[in-house]
């Protein structure tokens, strides 16, 4: 972990001509060879427009365009987990967003992931309209808005109205565990680095049952790569579940339609019958 951060910092500090060289070296390792092309690093020449206080401007409404919420690992197309939805609910194939292709689970944890998958209709917190956790919130498929100010950067997700506050100046340890964790941020050149801890063990990483424990530590790197795209790199560390830290990467796309807006997806009322319907009063016999 510390190593990886060091490498990241070094990369950020490198002069532009060095970056492609280093990337080439990385690309020749067998693991990185499986990395989808989408994760190619941002052009080192790109310098984002600045906010009035001089920071790279990440303001906007962003969304991923991939199948990571179905499964962050590579997966073929498959039928809908809910029969009634037919093709409308079927799973599109995906090349995966995990660096190296496979999540380095500890053996027992991989077994648990498979059980999660088998029982996903009963267990996936997304189905129950629970807060999505991190990083799932980012690629859950709905848009999110970045409201960037000097002290606080807010990430406001359409799904369940999930919200994260990234503390840029008034940083503290997580006061208690939570679904969305406790995020402290810093700028490394063009990159917003967000360090998040203090998670509970209740959220998942996708609909395929990939999961984490309360020892989860997430480091996200938001690097503008063009006026309308951000490279989103995530390092996941959780020694209770994974044998080593691992990474995923994907682009974020900006909504450019002029009327784009985060709308209400207050999903609690959509799941109440599913969650509490069995407790409904039955008509007298």
């Amino acid at each position, binding site marked *: 972990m510390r190593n990886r951060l060091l490498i990241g910092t070094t990369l950020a500090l490198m002069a532009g001509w060095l970056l492609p060289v280093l990337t080439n070296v990385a690309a020749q390792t067998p693991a990185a060879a499986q990395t989808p092309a989408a994760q190619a690093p941002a052009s080192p020449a790109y310098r984002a427009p600045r906010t009035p206080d001089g920071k790279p401007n990440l303001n906007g409404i962003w969304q991923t365009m991939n199948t990571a919420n179905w499964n962050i690992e590579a997966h073929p197309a498959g039928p809908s987990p809910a029969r009634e939805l037919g093709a409308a609910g079927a799973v599109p194939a995906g090349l995966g967003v995990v660096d190296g292709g496979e999540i380095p689970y500890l053996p027992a944890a991989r077994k648990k992931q498979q059980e999660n998958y088998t029982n996903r209709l009963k267990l996936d917190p997304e189905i129950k309209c629970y807060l999505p956790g991190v990083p799932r919130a980012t690629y859950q498929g709905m848009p999110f808005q970045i409201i960037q100010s000097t002290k606080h950067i*807010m990430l406001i997700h359409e799904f369940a109205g999930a919200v994260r506050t990234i503390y840029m100046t008034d940083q503290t340890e997580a006061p208690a565990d939570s679904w*969305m964790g406790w995020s402290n941020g810093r700028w490394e050149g063009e990159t917003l680095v967000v360090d998040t801890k203090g998670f509970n063990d209740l959220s998942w990483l996708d609909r395929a049952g990939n999961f984490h424990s309360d020892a989860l530590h997430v480091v996200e790197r938001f690097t503008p790569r063009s006026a309308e795209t951000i490279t989103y790199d995530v390092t996941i560390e959780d020694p209770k579940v994974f044998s080593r830290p691992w990474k995923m990467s994907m682009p974020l796309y900006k909504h450019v339609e002029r009327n784009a807006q985060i709308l209400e997806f207050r999903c609690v009322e959509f799941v109440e019958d599913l969650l509490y319907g069995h407790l409904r009063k039955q008509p007298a016999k």
Partner: protein
Amino acid sequence: MRHRTRSFMRGGAVALVLALAATISIAGQSAAPPAAPKAAPASAAAGKAYKAPRTPDGQPDLQGFWTNSTYVPLERPNGVTKEFYTPDEAEAAIKVAAEREAEQTEPGTTADVHYDFSQFGLDRSQSKFAMNLRTSLIVDPTDGKMPPVNAQGQKRAQERAAARKTAGGQYDAVENMPIGSRCIIMGGAGPPLMNAGYNANYQIVQSPGYVMILTEMIHDVRIIPLDNRPQPPSQVRQWVGLSRGRWEGDTLVVETTNFNGKNGFRGASENMKVTERFTRTADNTVSYKFTVEDPTTWDRSWTAEAPLVKTEGPIFEFACHETNYGIANILAGARADEKKAAEQKKGSN
């Protein structure tokens, strides 16, 4: 579980329980000297000379953590005829109200089983609140009372009551329970921002073109665009409506329409329009006024004023639905009661 998710800013509140009476004046005055009469009224006069700080892009800066917790009722109490109390009268009114809140937590009462307000630091006297000498938040009509509900509004109220009756008892089904208990929306998020009773905390963050208001209760976020974009299509309706904002001098004016009407704020319909005015009048105060219009409920608009005072952050995640054991247990309890009653009936036959 709710108490666990309250703002951790009041982590030390439990220690203050035994000093309830003392806390009232300490919390009420915040940084000001005790019983300072100049603490109120918090709006116009004091704000004249004050120039609000600016964000880097030049907006008046409303950012930070704020609370609208107050003991001032929305409507003026019967028998009170003046607009402002003296500081002594205000203290006395607060004391009565605080005692009423404490009564909710008498050991052995039903309320005590669910919420012990004072034990968990949830009652207003233990949090910071806006000292305000007003006798009502409503400033227009000048009698401090809501305008009378018109014929259309009364008809809707009757229809809503009839629909509730048809739907059965409150514990028959989850849909019959209050929306706050269901963790759909709680008082406070608004618009308008209304004192939520506890956790009445807000965080305002501004970026070029936007003002964001996070309400602590159920992490409710409102993102207000400031770019004069047109109102959304009338088919798009939300629990909290859709807001459009603009700066008028140093005042943020926010107009909200497109409510879905399910919240029924004070009997209003989906036609409600709320106009809010935020003006920073001191480093620790934002004047907040709102006007509510709904010609299908009231023949005239009404306006209230409830200042936001600065409070300490941060705001912790309020994961309400995720730990809503209460609602499942209440419904399960009602079914168990019915089963028991049916068995007893069978037994006695």
